[in-house]
């Protein structure tokens, strides 16, 4: 079932520059478990899109199958949505993006949907540098089928049933960096202040933006011994960077308490103020980031923040040299070569 939220809204709710209220960016009521980390991520998406003044109809939201993939119903009800098949959101998004390069593509997926059944499609979307934001709501387990370990469950993590995972967990951020993702971040669903600017940066970035969000499963993986529980993540979260997102044309105010502040200009003209918190890595150097991730993993820590970005990002359309007009807006005039050319082709086959 889907439950619509009441349409009633206070007439003087503030509107953003695009002319919409925050409420306009919401979706229907969530049917996920109360306290699910995914709902916080949905709320962060709503905030990010509202604050960035994105027109909802210029966003396409896509997903695969699983708890996380249900969430597009819970945000941006005025955007087209596509809940595709298990693990295949990347290919559907690739096709949609090829058809119309002018929209913003927001894909959400889960750890099962990405790291197991969808691993092949995930890594190929990364290597094509598809211009999209790809958020994994990572809880280390299969919620809808009652809590089996997923491929991102950490070695040694104990599930609710008391079973200890004996397999190595896949580090999606490290993988994405290695494969050529041009914007890679990690966050925690419980840390809205970190997550919202990360999503904004991802949406503004031209190329593949990946955010792995640890999002505890309150029903099956929030117990003692789990490395993806609220308590565990709060205790082992080490923020390596923080961000302030400055939309296009807005003046950058220059008072920061951090010592290292780097402004990053995004493709659309907006600016991210990047605060490097950890001296141990350089966000533009893959080796340095990978080394920091591996070290953190060995110490059972979770590095969060913007981990890696590539200023020289060239997205798929640039590589394919597709025309600037969205392909879905071309007509017979541009697409059909006409009978005269056909006659010449005929002649070449006589």
């Amino acid at each position: 079932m889907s439950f619509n939220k009441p349409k009633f809204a206070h007439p003087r709710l503030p509107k953003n520059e695009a002319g919409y209220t925050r409420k306009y960016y919401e979706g229907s009521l969530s049917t996920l478990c109360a306290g699910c980390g995914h709902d916080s991520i949905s709320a962060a998406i709503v905030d990010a899109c509202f604050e960035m003044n994105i027109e909802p109809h210029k966003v396409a939201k896509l997903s695969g199958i699983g708890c996380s993939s249900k969430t597009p119903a819970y945000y941006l009800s005025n955007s087209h949505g596509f809940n595709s098949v298990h693990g295949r959101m990347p290919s559907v998004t690739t096709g949609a993006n090829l058809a119309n390069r002018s929209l913003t593509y927001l894909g959400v997926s889960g750890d099962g949907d990405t790291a197991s059944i969808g691993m092949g499609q995930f890594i190929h979307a990364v290597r094509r540098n598809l211009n999209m934001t790809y958020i994994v709501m990572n809880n280390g387990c299969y919620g809808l089928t009652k809590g089996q370990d997923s491929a991102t469950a950490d070695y040694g993590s104990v599930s609710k049933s008391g079973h200890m995972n004996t397999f190595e967990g896949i580090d999606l951020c490290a993988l994405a960096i290695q494969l050529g993702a041009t914007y890679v971040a990690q966050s925690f669903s419980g840390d809205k202040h970190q997550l919202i600017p990360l999503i904004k940066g991802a949406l503004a970035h031209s190329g593949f933006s990946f955010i792995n969000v640890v999002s505890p499963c309150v029903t099956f993986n929030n117990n003692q011994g789990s490395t993806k529980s609220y308590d565990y993540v709060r205790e082992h979260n080490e923020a390596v960077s923080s961000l302030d997102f400055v939309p296009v044309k807005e003046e950058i105010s220059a008072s920061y308490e951090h010592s290292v502040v780097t402004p990053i200009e995004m493709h659309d003209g907006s600016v991210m103020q990047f605060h490097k918190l950890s001296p141990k890595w350089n966000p533009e150097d893959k080796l340095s980031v990978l080394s920091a991730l591996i070290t953190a993993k060995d110490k059972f820590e979770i590095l969060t923040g913007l981990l890696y970005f590539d200023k020289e990002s060239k997205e798929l359309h640039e590589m394919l040299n597709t025309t600037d007009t969205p392909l879905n807006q071309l007509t017979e005039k541009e697409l059909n070569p006409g009978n005269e050319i056909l006659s010449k082709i005929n002649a070449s086959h006589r």
Partner: protein
Amino acid sequence: MHGVNDFVVKFANVNGTGSASANFLFAKAIFRMGVPVSAKNIFPSNIQGLPTWYEVRVSEKGYLGRKEGIDLMVSVNPQSFKSDIASVKSGGYFLYDSTKKLHEEFLREDIHFIGIPLMELCNEAFTDPRQKQLFKNIVYVGALAKLLNLDLTTIEGLFAEQFKGKEKLIIPNMKALKLGSDYVESHFSYPLEFYVEKRDLTKNKIMIDGNAAAALGAVYGGATVVSWYPITPSTSLVSSFEKYAQKMRLDPVTGKNNYSVVQAEDELAAIGMAIGANWNGARSFTATSGAGISLMNEFLGLAFYSEIPLVLVDVQRGGPSTGMPTRTQQSDLTTCAYASHGDTKHVMLFPSTPNECFHMMADAFDYTEMLQTPVIVMSDLDLGMNDHVTDPFIWDDNRKFKRGKVLSSEQLNTMTNWGRYLDVDGDGVPYRTIPGTHPTKGSYFTRGSSHDEYARYSEDSDTYKRIVDRIAVKFETAKKIIPGPELFQTSDTSDKALLFFGTTTDSALEAIDTLRNDGFSIDGIRIKSFPFSSEVDHFIQSHKEVYVVEQNKFGQMRSLLINELNIDPHKLISVVHYDGTPITAESIISQVHKHVFLPTN
């Protein structure tokens, strides 16, 4: 022996030695001389080294199906000498490279051996080792030209076209051609008792393979997003699309591409991309073969149930599993008709010539958008990869793409109760919207899970039934849109008929002619699409026995006819051919004769 313009030449070569272009040159020269010709490549799943064959049938009557019985075998592959010699018709000819002596055990008393020292001639005439190898092929074409009365200036003209811009290659090619021709002139009597005589029968025809034709159809049909995964025999379809698009689809000002081609990581991603692009309002297709169809099943179900247009080309090959990747069959019919889990059904088109590959491919984009359901173009290896003599392509410049029920921003402004899955017109086809069309209207949530008329998730039983019943209505609408059958009846109608489709057509029509000439009365029907129209039903009902001709073992078309039209199975008699080679008229006739079939006069 048959005589003028009626014989079969088969070439036995080693894969990867450049023989394919020489053999095509031979076939093309006959076509240029105005005589109908069919050329079929019988090749291995291999890059270099294994035996490969090329069959050329010359037929004044225009019979372009495969024919059994080799009149002249050209063998430059000692690996297959034994079976090649055995396959020549009694009284026929075996042309071979006599640089090395032929084993005596291979000799047959009842055929003629024509030894031409191909290697020796090339070794003497050329110095470059690569040329020595490649020109062997041209030398035997030269020999054949003399033996079969081919016009050397026609071949020279073909060289001139082939080497346009590289004119200095014409001279050594002509030299090799003359070597073969002169050798025959001084050593044998010529022409043979069968040979080519100029006619005017191919004047308005072209010679092209079905994959190139379908690719061109996709260009003309407005495809802009093409996603694919390499698999034989569909690969050349997408490479042809790219080749044409690179010439015909560039923005005149910026030089940028008005198309995109993505080689996917697998067939699942290939079809997923095509679905995503169609969902987003672009015309998009993918092409595959064999295992690719199995891999695409899940996504076909999604497109069916969420009602997304999609053109899929299945260039069928020998199955099951990896099967015979380089041999031909029509054995994906049942899997394509009902691909994916749950109650699904898909529209299929059955082109039988490259001309139809072109037109059906272009039309498929209209059909799929008008119906909002996948359309599968059912080609096969024989049609897709072999060059066929076919009618030229014609495009009506006034033709517009039929985009179906897509709502514009203006239309959305005037609507009050739009539902993505509401059947407003009673034809089962709802109205769709494309993302980004309207700031506040028309957004909806596409999903493969059960949903109501407004695209909302629903597990309600009545709602579920309403939606699937309405989707079924679309398939009745489809019958009015997709092409109906072609009937082959004389005024003196028979109670027996051949039913055929796709690449069984050439041989079936030849079989009908032969049977009629032998005094048997028989009708014919060619199926062009699925689901079957009432015309197909009526035709079958009005005949006592219908022979269903198809290239698979289990009689898949017959099964579909029984299943869809409720036809008494006893009425439909299977005529099947499934060894991986194209079906012949002889095979059809002999299977028909196995049943009680008396002459009418």
